[in-house]
Every structure is written in C-alpha cells, then in structure tokens.
C-alpha cells in the first residue's frame, strides 16, 4: 500500500465527478433517484417498479388521475410511506436505510401538503421557526429572524403573530411553504398544494411556487394545474395505475398523441 495522503488527493477523480465536470448528465446530477420502486397495499399495487429521477435544479410536475400513485411516490421519497421493493437515493442518502437515514433525508427535503397541516396551537411565526430549532439546533432568535424573512418573502409578514385558523386557505398554504423552506431544504416536494383551495386563492400560492422556480430550487410538484405545469415545469411526468406512462418536457408532453391513456386524461381535464 504505497498511496499516501498526497497520492490520494491527486487521484481522487471518480468517473461520476469527471463526467459531471464535463457537463454530461450523470448519476451525480440526480438529487433524487428511485429505482424499481414498488409499493403495495395488500392486493393493491400503488407503485409498480417505478424508475424516477430528478436532477439538481430541475422542476418536475407529476400529473395524472387520482389513485395513480402520484402522492404515494412523493410520500415515499421522504419516508412518510415505506416501500416493498427497489431503492431510493436522495442527495446521496440511500433507502432502505436506518431510521437516522430517513431523518437525514427529511431534513434535506421540504414537503408541502394538500391540507397545509399547520400546527393550529402555534402562531405563524412559531410554525415556521419550530423545525430549525428542533431539527437543526438553530437558536431561537435566529430561527425567529429566519421565519420573519421567509414569511415576508411569501407575503405573510403582517400576519406573523396570528394563529393559522385566522388565515385564509391561501395564506395558510403560503405559511406552510415558508415552514418547509425554513429547513433550507435541497428539494421541495408539493403534494397537490392548491387542491384544497378556493379558486381565487390558487393563483397566490402558484405565484409563490413560481418565484421558487426562479431561485433554482429543485422541486417535484404533484398538481392538477396543467396550465401551471406547462409554464413552470422542466419535465412533466404522467402517472397512471402505479406506473410512469409518459414523461417529457412540456411542449412534447402536450403534443403527445401516441399514449392513449394520456390522451384520454388530457381530453378530460383540458
């Protein structure tokens, strides 16, 4: 064994990093990588050997009929659902793994739920400041300052001392987005973020998400808002019956006429 410390540092050049440095898409660019992911609920198979990748900085919208596995896929990525076969790698952390691995993934992955799930017994400020304090050990003052900054960014700064029940649905969802961002995640997952909202509040939430797209945040968005998907996504994934039936950039996605299931879905929702 002659390789000393010096020799080691010189030869540290794995195939992946070489490829990445040349700008070739490779595994190293994938922040999320699901391989042959299968999830069953008794006799029902929610995910059938799904292969799903998300590159750093990419915005992926997942669409499709209800019960197609969209939410299950999202919830599996941050360990809210377990899976039966396959593997997930998020930012280098692999599942199935230890409990610690699941927690590490959750800290890197922000999640926004359809039903907001804000903590009703805490002020808006506390909702946003809690996780940085408890999961990252950030001091109270800094966590509060961070909360105020993020709430200003999503346009809720004047409601900071109110309780969630005093806010409209759109405002609550914007708080939920700020709460997820407070952990400074590398990826944001949105599970039908506008589905529980009245029509007039959908646009204010989409506007916040749109601004996030502008910052280069990696995002996976399960949505029924096809107009939004067309405009914001780098890639649209169509899921049906637990499989990814079609995935393509928006222009090609909407021009797709070969997949009958997608055509049937689009004819119903457009």
């Amino acid at each position, binding site marked *: 064994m002659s390789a000393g410390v010096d020799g080691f540092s010189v030869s540290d050049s794995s195939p992946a990093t070489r490829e990445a440095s040349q700008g070739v898409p490779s595994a190293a660019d994938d922040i999320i990588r699901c391989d042959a992911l299968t999830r069953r609920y008794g006799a029902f198979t929610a995910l059938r050997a799904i292969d799903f990748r998300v590159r750093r900085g990419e915005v992926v919208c997942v669409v499709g009929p209800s019960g197609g596995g969209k939410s299950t896929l999202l919830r599996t990525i941050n360990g*809210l659902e377990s899976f039966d076969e396959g593997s997930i790698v998020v930012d280098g952390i692999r599942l199935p793994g230890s409990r610690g691995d699941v927690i590490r993934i959750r*800290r890197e992955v922000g999640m926004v739920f359809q039903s907001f*799930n804000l903590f009703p017994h805490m002020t808006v400020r506390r909702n946003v400041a809690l*996780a940085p304090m*408890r999961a990252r050990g950030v001091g109270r003052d800094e966590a509060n300052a961070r909360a105020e900054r993020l709430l200003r960014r999503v346009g809720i700064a004047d409601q900071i001392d109110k309780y969630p029940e005093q806010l409209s649905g759109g405002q609550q969802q914007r708080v939920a987005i700020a709460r*997820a961002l407070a*952990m400074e995640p590398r990826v944001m997952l949105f599970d039908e973020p506008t589905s529980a909202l009245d029509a007039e509040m959908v646009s204010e939430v989409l506007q916040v998400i749109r601004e996030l797209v502008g910052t280069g945040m990696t995002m996976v968005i399960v949505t029924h808002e096809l107009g939004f998907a067309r405009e914001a996504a780098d890639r649209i994934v169509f899921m049906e019956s637990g499989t990814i039936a079609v995935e393509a950039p928006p222009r090609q996605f909407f021009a797709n006429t070969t997949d009958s299931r997608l055509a049937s879905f689009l004819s119903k929702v457009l």
Partner: protein
Amino acid sequence: MHFHFDTTVIVRHLPELFAGVELTVLLVMVSLGVGTVLGMIACIGKLLGRGLLCWIASAYVTVMRGIPEMVVMFWIYYCGPLILDTRLSSFAAAATSMSLYAGAFLAEIFRAGILAVPRGQTEAARALGVPELFTWAEVILPQALRMMIPAFIGVVTLIVKVSGLASAIGVAELVYQANIVSGQSYRYFELFTAVGIFYFALIFPLSLLAQRYERVLARRTR
C-alpha cells in the same frame, strides 16, 4: 301528617359535615393524582399495540371498567389482606380502589385524545425532520391535552360521586359523617339534603367549566 324542615340541625352539624367535605376532597385529589399516573402508563401500554405492557394495560382497563367500584373497594379492603398479609387503612383502601378506577377511565380518555390529533400533524412534524420527542412534546400532546379536558372533567365528577362509597368501609368522608350525625338526631332528610347541596357545589362548577371548554373547542375545530 306534618313535617317540619329543621335547618338548625344542619347548622349545628356543619363542623362534622365540613370535616367530611374535607376528607372527600382529599380522597378525590389523591385518587385523581395516582389515577392520572396509572392512566398515563396504561395509555402508553395500549398505544404500543402489542407486547406485555399492552396486554396488561388492556386487561386492567377492561376489567376495571366492567366491575362496580364498590366491589373493587370492598375487595381491596376485605380480600386484599388475605393476599398481602397487611390490612390497609380504610382511607388507603378507598384511595387505592378509586385510583385504579380513575386510572382505567383516564387511560381511555388520554388515548382517545392522542388519537384525535390528525395524522397530518404528525406527518408534518416528521416531514420537517423534527425529532420524535419534540414531535410528541410540542405538536401531538399540546393538541391532545386540549381535546381531553372536557372528558377529564367528566372523570373528576365521576370520582367525586363515587367517593361516597368509601363511607361503606369506614372512611369519614361526607356521606359517612352525615350518616353518623343523622343517626344521632334522626334528621336524615335535612342532613342528606345538605349532603346533596355540598356534592352539587363541588360538581356544578366543574360541569360549567367542561361546558365552556367544549364550546371553545367546537369553535376552534369548526
């Protein structure tokens, strides 16, 4: 037939009656204190869903809720000594049986309160990477406790009412005192009217509190 309601007999025996109220309150407080601890342990046992503690907790709750409190009290007072070889004082026997009784009811109330916290709350905390301990301490339990309060007050009133049974094993609480003094004066009507008023005075404020809290909760959860 003529009956004269003699209020002076109540006034004359107020010291005895107040001594009884005092012991009733003490008995209720001890039983609720110990019962709360027992209830928490049994609640955790049942929430675990399997294992020895779960089995013991389920058996305890089911048995206690299926037996009259009087039987439990008599059993501990009269049969306990045959097994344990020491006789508990009547107060200790009453407090023990009432604690067991309160614990069984409270276990179910605690469990129901925790299960009533929406799953989305736990999921949101987990998705943020908040450690399990903080998820319980700051997200689940504060919400569960609020929902438990009306039912908890219900158990408090139940235990106040049940405490009268302790007179049967010689605890000198309110019913016991009333029995003694009315036995001397033959003024059962007056004295047990007074007993009723004392119990009502203990329980009614609690009922009001529970009602008010239920309205608050109804408004919050919409």
